[in-house]
């Protein structure tokens, strides 16, 4: 079978190399996003998350009201998030920790990528209008997570790459679900 330039096997090989390169690119985005979430999780300190002295996560949550970006989100923060702040503090604590761990290792990447997009939008809607903030950092972060989610960024240099072939061998509902979420 011919492998000369332009032949079907050569085109297939070139396509495979390009797909692999794209996969590694998404893996880099995924790992950087995961490390970012891991790094930023450290200052979410339970149990009060800064509410008593107006610092920490409480302060950042109030930015959505003091420097509004998206009015419906501001209304949500005023009406729901702040009155139930302890719940949302713990939710952010757990979510950002999980995002860090799962994205770095590339496990169930489509699920955690999608949750990361939601969290990054919540962050952006709180802080992009705060003086001194560089809004494009948040836009880029969100765009990176969208790419990781749509591109299934755990299928190179991630546990999804190792586990998907094995999940595909099982008819168990959890295995089927894991395939969809990775």
């Amino acid at each position, binding site marked *: 079978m011919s492998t000369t330039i332009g032949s079907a096997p050569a085109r297939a090989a070139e396509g495979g190399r390009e797909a692999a390169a794209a996969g590694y690119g998404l893996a880099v985005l995924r790992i950087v996003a995961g490390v970012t979430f891991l790094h930023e999780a450290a200052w979410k300190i*339970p149990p009060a998350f800064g509410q008593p002295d107006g610092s920490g996560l409480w302060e950042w949550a109030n930015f959505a009201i003091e420097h509004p970006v998206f009015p419906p989100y501001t209304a949500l923060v005023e009406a729901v998030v702040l009155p139930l702040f302890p719940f949302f503090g713990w939710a952010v604590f757990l979510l950002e920790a999980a995002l860090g*761990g799962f994205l770095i*290792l590339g496990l169930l990447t489509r699920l955690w990528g999608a949750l990361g997009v939601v969290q990054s939008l919540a962050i952006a809607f709180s802080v992009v209008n705060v003086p001194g903030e560089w809004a494009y950092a948040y836009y880029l972060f969100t765009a990176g997570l969208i790419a990781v989610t749509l591109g299934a960024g755990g299928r190179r240099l991630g546990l999804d*790459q190792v586990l998907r072939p*094995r999940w595909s*061998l099982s008819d168990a509902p959890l295995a089927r679900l894991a395939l969809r979420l990775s």
Partner: protein
Amino acid sequence: MNGGIRTAALVLGVLGVLSGAAGFAVSAGQPFTAAEGARVGELFHLNPLGSLVSVVLGLVAIAGAAARLRVVVLVAAAGWLLAALQVVLQSGREPNLLGGTASTLALFLGLGAGLLALAVAPETPDAAAPATADT
């Protein structure tokens, strides 16, 4: 436990050992169960006990992967997940036995969930079978 599963478990075990070793380096001089662990780079926090736990669990994972014993890898996974639970229950308060923060929770949760997924994954019919090309 064959091929990529074994390699991945080894990698996670090494990651755990390295995390603990780095924790020892930065937490030297801290009380053994300091409530606020030292920060490794710009990443997670560990005190000397947390560093020891990381090294031990990492070695258990490596031993399980090297010996192809899923149950040993499962023990390491359970250990990491228990350590993660400790962070949730004690972080930000005293006592905080392992000195961790939410960043440390990310490390413990990732390693625990990763090893768990590897330990319970179905075996491929042929240990030499290549991974399916859906990457």
